[in-house]
């Protein structure tokens, strides 16, 4: 019996198509695995089912009857429970309150029924007895727990919905072996009781252990659904990559060898910090070093730490031959580092201010500029913007008048007035259109040719393959593999990224 059926579901955010055509059918009593690379649309699909994202088009059937899901409440009412990858917990509330938060038991229609709340929460807490770790208690505040314990709370919260259809979006990323095993026992029980379960994970071994069928999504489109016991890991990866995974066409076109011996721009030795550990590499002047791997494996944390915006616990960084310990981004900028984040609204754009003000802050800092005359500033700002074909009507228009791609060009332009030595790119093309991407990478390659050392983290493998001279694949906070020369293929990138951590 079909618990849930989606056909032709799509969702666009502005110009970005997060999900082009999502098809999925989940049966009662099965664990249905969703697989796809970063940004392929898995999480969007799950959020559509859970009601926190509204689809633009498509049909949803629950128990073979057409359904409209208007929001998370409506999804719950229709029997859907979800584990959110980014968690949906209240940090200042206790474990038991979080578990029952969606439907707090009430006495006299008004008061929280503490007794039955405790009882209900205790049932789900008991499921993980013995593996939940030190300090895990019903009345502990969630904010005081370790990441793996928080993930357990989110699992318990999803289980407490007692929904016939449960979605788990990467529920095991922070869990240890014993916790995962316990969780899989629980899932097995639910399966036997006829629940439908959607499961997302990047660990091949887990998927084999728990999954019945797998649906593969690539570039926002459902490719196919397979029985897991009739297929193998290589087939699945090949399907995720696209038919021609190891054909020459998907190989890197960029020359592998850059004359590093000449001079190194940035050297990192055994660097550890929050989110990454023991990372070493060297990037030469004129080289583009790519960071690959699944999302959130330490790439962004490392780049931010190098830029002085994140904590470093041990190891050393050298710029050229000089030791460098950035205590703050301000310091890093003075020493010739530049950082561009894909999260423009948080890390880049000065919202509501004119374009010219968005281009000039780094110039103010590096030139110790006190008073700026608009006309002199314009002479410096315009060439930087034009070098990237930025489209704008007037320098004094607010930056919000521009498209995402053009906004990102403005952000990059601010680093071009006074040339940095090292450029840190943290998934810089997130959410921007194809022509802007092309302009950006033309510029990036040109900057490399002019002698900058460039670190490029991208969640899109095509960007890495198309631009990086070497690629470091990250897994669980450290570099698991370095791809050089002819090894730089889509297939190898995937394989390195999906190896069990």
């Amino acid at each position, binding site marked *: 019996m079909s618990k849930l059926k989606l056909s032709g579901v799509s969702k666009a955010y502005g110009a970005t198509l997060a999900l082009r055509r999502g098809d999925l059918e989940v049966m009662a009593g099965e664990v249905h695995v969703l697989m796809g690379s970063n940004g392929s649309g898995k999480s969007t699909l799950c959020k559509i089912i*859970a009601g*926190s994202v509204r689809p633009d088009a498509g049909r949803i059937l629950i128990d073979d009857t057409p359904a409209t899901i208007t*929001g*998370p*409440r409506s*999804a*719950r009412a229709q029997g859907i429970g*979800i584990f*959110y990858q980014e*968690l*949906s*917990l*209240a*940090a*200042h*509330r206790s474990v038991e*309150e979080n578990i029952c*938060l*969606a*439907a*707090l038991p*009430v006495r006299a229609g*008004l*008061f*929280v029924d*503490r007794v039955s709340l405790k009882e209900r929460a205790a049932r789900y807490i008991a499921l993980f007895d013995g593996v939940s770790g030190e300090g895990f208690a019903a009345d502990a*505040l*969630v*904010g*005081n727990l370790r990441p793996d314990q928080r993930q357990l709370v989110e699992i318990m*919260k999803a289980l407490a919905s007692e929904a016939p259809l449960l979605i788990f979006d990467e529920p095991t990323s922070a869990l240890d072996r014993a916790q995962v095993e316990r969780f899989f026992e629980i899932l097995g029980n639910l399966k036997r009781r006829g629940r439908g379960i959607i499961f997302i994970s990047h660990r091949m071994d887990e998927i084999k252990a728990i999954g019945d069928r797998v649906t593969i999504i690539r570039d926002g489109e459902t490719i196919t659904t397979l029985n897991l016991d009739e297929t193998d890991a290589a087939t699945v990866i090949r399907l995720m990559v696209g038919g021609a995974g190891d054909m020459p066409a998907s190989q890197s076109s960029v020359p592998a060898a850059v004359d590093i011996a000449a001079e190194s721009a940035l050297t990192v030795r055994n660097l550890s910090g929050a989110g990454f550990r023991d990372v070493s590499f060297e990037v030469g002047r004129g080289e583009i070093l790519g960071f690959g791997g699944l999302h959130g494996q330490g790439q962004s944390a490392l780049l931010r730490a190098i830029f002085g915006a994140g904590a470093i616990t041990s190891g050393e960084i050298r710029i050229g031959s000089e030791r460098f310990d950035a205590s703050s981004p301000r310091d890093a900028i003075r020493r010739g580092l530049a950082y561009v984040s894909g999260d423009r609204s948080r890390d880049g754009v000065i919202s509501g201010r004119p374009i010219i003000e968005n281009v000039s802050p780094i110039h103010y800092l590096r030139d110790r500029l006190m008073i700026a005359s608009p006309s002199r500033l314009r002479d410096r700002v315009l060439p930087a913007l034009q070098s990237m074909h930025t489209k704008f009507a007037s320098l004094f228009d607010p930056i919000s008048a521009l498209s995402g791609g053009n906004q990102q060009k403005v952000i990059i332009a601010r680093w071009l007035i006074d040339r940095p030595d090292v450029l840190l790119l943290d998934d810089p093309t997130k959410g921007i259109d194809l022509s802007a991407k092309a302009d950006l990478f033309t510029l990036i390659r040109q900057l490399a040719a002019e002698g900058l050392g460039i670190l490029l983290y991208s969640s899109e493998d095509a960007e890495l393959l198309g631009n990086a001279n070497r690629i470091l694949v990250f897994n669980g906070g450290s570099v698991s593999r370095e791809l050089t020369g002819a090894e730089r293929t889509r297939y190898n990138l995937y394989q390195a990224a999906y190896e069990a951590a």
Partner: protein
Amino acid sequence: MAEIATGPMSRRVGSIRRLLERYPFLPALGIVAALFLLNGFFSPASLSYRALTGLLSTYMALILLSIAQTYVVYAGDIDLSVGSILSLVNVTIIVLMERWGGGAGAVLLSLALGLLLGLACGLVNGLVVAALRLQAIVATFATSIFFTGLALYILPVAGTPAPTLFWRTYGGRLFGLPFVFYILAVLLVLLFMLARTRLAAQLLAVGDDRQAAYQTGLPVVSVRIRGYLLCGLFAALAAFCITGDTASGDPLVGGKMTLYSVAAVVLGGSALAGGWGTVVGSLLGALTIGLINSLVFFMGTPSEWQNFMQGLAILLVLMAGVLAGRRARP
């Protein structure tokens, strides 16, 4: 060796932390106690029964207003119109009581209408902030001007007196005890019950992380609106106390109290970002402000320096509270 030494030490720090987690208002309580002692040191008479009754009846309005503010702060919102709601309710009940003759029936009916008016103001704020999604700080600033305008229309100049029955009751005694003590007792019971409601838990969850609360399936908009309703209700109650205390109507009486109420919430250990706090803390925070004002007076500060000293003292207390409370928050 070092590890053995740090063991019990860290456990002690841990237990202080747990205590603060459970009762986040403890630092505020300590500060109130210290201020009482200081007041007593400078003027023993300030700790007399009479003086304490006076302190309570003067600051009961601010206490209630701070509690009103706390409920919206719980949800990560803010209400800069509480003072104006207080003024509006104050002049409305004064005018109604006067028009209806000032008898017991007139007073009770006016109070009932005053409560409804407070709720209506809360509803307006809630709709503007939660349903229309305007920035709470600016939207409630705008509604505060709007409410003040209404208050000025109802009573253009301060001065209409309250019926004798009303202020005599507020400032008087019942079965030998000052009336404000009954108010305080009823208030404490009410706060105790409100703290156990589902709404309080939902407000805090919404304030903790609005997106997470939405994804959990909480009715975020309705919860926030109900927070503003509660706020309007308590602002109306605060208006009753100010009316009892001043025994007259004044369309601008609450203006200055708004930011005091915000300060009291923070002094009481609540997080302005939402998700963390207690109403008892705000009660103590309001008392702190009252005690600082009387301390500055009892220390014999020249009148031209009193504002300066009050500001300085509030800053000091805020620092002390932050230092003590910082450990508690996860």
